[in-house]
């Protein structure tokens, strides 16, 4: 029990308040200042996270507990937040977005994410999810001059509220039947470990459906492509990674004990999760094949990756899930960073044809994008390959052979569209000249760090794996 457990969340919330106030009082002049404040608060949060490692801090009667899994995820969120802010520096002024508002809302969303992953109390998880969602709706609609952005925000808001209602309803049933808000206790079934009481099962089913909505799992993924495409590009990078990571970790915390224990509960929820994973992988990958906008292609690829990640949840494979999420953070953030660089002043997003000849005119940028896409497809020696390898082999070890066969088939489908982008970049001649070459050191820094992360984790993943194993040894 220590107040220090609150420090990372407090640092982020303080940063959000300062950014918003700077934006409110200084207006346009405050933009860079508020971005600086946001990055500083992220550094502070990062410091507190590293400092809390292995201390098992908790507060509020363990409603907030910084176990290693929570700390790893918090670190992922902090890194992602810093990436998104660095990506938006030039983008925001180009697109007439108030940078202070973007930073403030982003930090509030990060606080929601941190609250979500660091609790085993349903009520707290739900409130964290709502903080994240409310901030995300606003972030999606920040490009106010663009109707697509407003449309995306409205869609996200409606679908998100709907999912939130599911969550509350499930929570009410769970609380009403078990009298407890704890993630684990609702399903213990009165001393019989294998039994599945009907009330909690329905409640848990509703909550799982709501979480599937939030992480864009088929058949609840219809909103995702429009939202990811309409959102400002750096925000899209955030939305494709962060809510997914938090939702999956909550799912893992709930479902791993249920599925691991066997009995009726596992017989009901196991096939549901596996079926959703297979459906998501194929729905995302098959739809991505037909896209001509690169941003939309990446949106569908993000849906497909939810499916691969669900394989890890179905197998109860905590370390595999965390490693995949970290690898995914670098490769997806990198791909969206390159996309941000490619967007011209006219506001249009890069189409597949627009990428033609990029390999000749901007070899470095094209090479980076190629690395990210190969990693997303799962080619060695990138991080994406190892991540898929760990998740799939972990699932086979748990006996989910059919699921893994489906996952491998789906990744084969995905190779087609990732390679199509690379082929267009290197083998087609340019139709129209793409104007890049703005002076954006922050963006190049993000691209460089992501390439570094992808290659480093692909070649020498040892340190991180040790850390993850050490952290999750007590949990799974």
């Amino acid at each position: 029990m220590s107040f220090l457990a609150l420090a990372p969340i407090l640092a982020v919330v303080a940063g959000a308040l300062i950014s918003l106030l700077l934006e409110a009082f200084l207006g346009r002049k405050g933009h860079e200042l508020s971005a600086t404040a946001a990055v500083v608060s992220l550094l502070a949060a990062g410091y507190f996270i590293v400092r809390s490692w292995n201390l098992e801090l908790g507060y509020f009667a363990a409603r907030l507990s910084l176990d290693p899994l929570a700390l790893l995820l918090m670190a992922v969120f902090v890194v992602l937040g810093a990436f998104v802010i660095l990506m938006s520096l030039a983008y925001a002024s180009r697109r007439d977005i108030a940078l202070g508002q973007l930073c403030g809302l982003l930090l509030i969303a990060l606080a929601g994410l941190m609250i979500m992953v660091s609790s085993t109390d349903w009520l707290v998880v739900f409130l964290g999810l709502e903080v994240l969602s409310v901030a995300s709706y606003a972030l999606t609609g920040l490009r106010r001059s663009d109707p697509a952005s407003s449309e995306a925000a409205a869609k996200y808001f409606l679908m998100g509220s709907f999912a939130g209602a599911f969550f509350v309803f499930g929570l009410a049933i769970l609380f009403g039947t078990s009298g407890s808000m704890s993630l684990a206790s609702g399903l213990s079934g009165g001393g019989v470990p294998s039994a599945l009481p009907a009330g909690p099962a329905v409640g848990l089913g509703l909550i799982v459906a709501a979480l599937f909505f939030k992480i864009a799992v088929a058949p609840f993924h219809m909103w995702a492509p429009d939202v990811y495409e309409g959102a400002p590009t750096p925000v899209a990078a955030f939305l494709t990674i962060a809510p997914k990571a938090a939702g999956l970790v909550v799912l893992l915390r709930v479902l791993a004990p249920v599925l691991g224990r066997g009995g009726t509960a596992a017989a009901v929820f196991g096939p549901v999760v596996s079926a959703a994973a297979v459906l998501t992988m194929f729905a995302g990958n098959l739809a991505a094949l037909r896209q001509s906008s690169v941003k939309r292609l990446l949106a569908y690829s993000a849906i497909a990756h939810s499916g691969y990640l669900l394989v890890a949840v179905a197998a109860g494979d905590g370390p595999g899930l965390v490693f995949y999420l970290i690898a995914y953070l670098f490769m997806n953030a990198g791909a969206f960073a390159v996309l941000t660089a490619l967007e011209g002043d006219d506001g249009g997003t890069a189409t597949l044809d627009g990428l033609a000849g990029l390999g000749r005119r901007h070899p470095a940028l094209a090479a980076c994008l190629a690395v990210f896409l190969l990693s997303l497809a799962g080619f060695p020696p990138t991080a994406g390959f190892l991540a898929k390898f760990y998740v799939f082999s972990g699932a086979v070890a748990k006996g989910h052979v059919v699921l893994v066969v489906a996952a491998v088939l789906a990744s084969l489908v995905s190779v087609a569209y990732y390679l199509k982008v690379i082929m267009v970049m290197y083998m087609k001649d340019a139709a129209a000249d793409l104007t890049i070459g703005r002076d954006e050191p922050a963006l190049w820094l993000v691209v460089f760090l992501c390439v570094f992360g992808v290659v480093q984790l692909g070649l020498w993943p040892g340190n991180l794996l040790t850390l993850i194993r050490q952290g999750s040894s007590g949990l799974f």
Partner: protein
Amino acid sequence: MTLAVFVVLSAVCVAAVAAMILSRNPADNALFLVVAFAALGGLFGLLDSPFAAVAQVLVYAGAIMVLFLFAVMMFDLRRLEPRSRKRVRLGLASALAALLLAELALAGIRISGLAGPAWRSAEARDMARLGRLLFTDYLYPLEISALLLMAAIAGALALAGRKDAG
């Protein structure tokens, strides 16, 4: 007496819900739903749970219905709304407002009446316990809801505030 009130309130509630489903105009639907919520609040009051009654009126009839009405107003209603119905709607709206005011006043009188020796009654103790629970066991969720409200305000400002100043 209790039975009579119960019968009246439930009849109003059922009739309002039926009218809500049958009526074609979205604005009327929303207003009928408010009537149903208000009647429901009265039913909670009959069940000796003043907190549920007040929350029902304040939260549902007050906050959530305002949200509904805003959403309804965002659509173009002129096409759906014949001019002749305007007076009916006005009458309905003012009757509703009076009903809500009466309920709130009643609740307020009962709560302020509790400040005296009646403070030791069971329902008052329940309310006090609820408050204490919120600030002890459920402090963390309470603080997070404060953050949630701030997120909502910041988000609303970002989406709808003045464009130059933000």
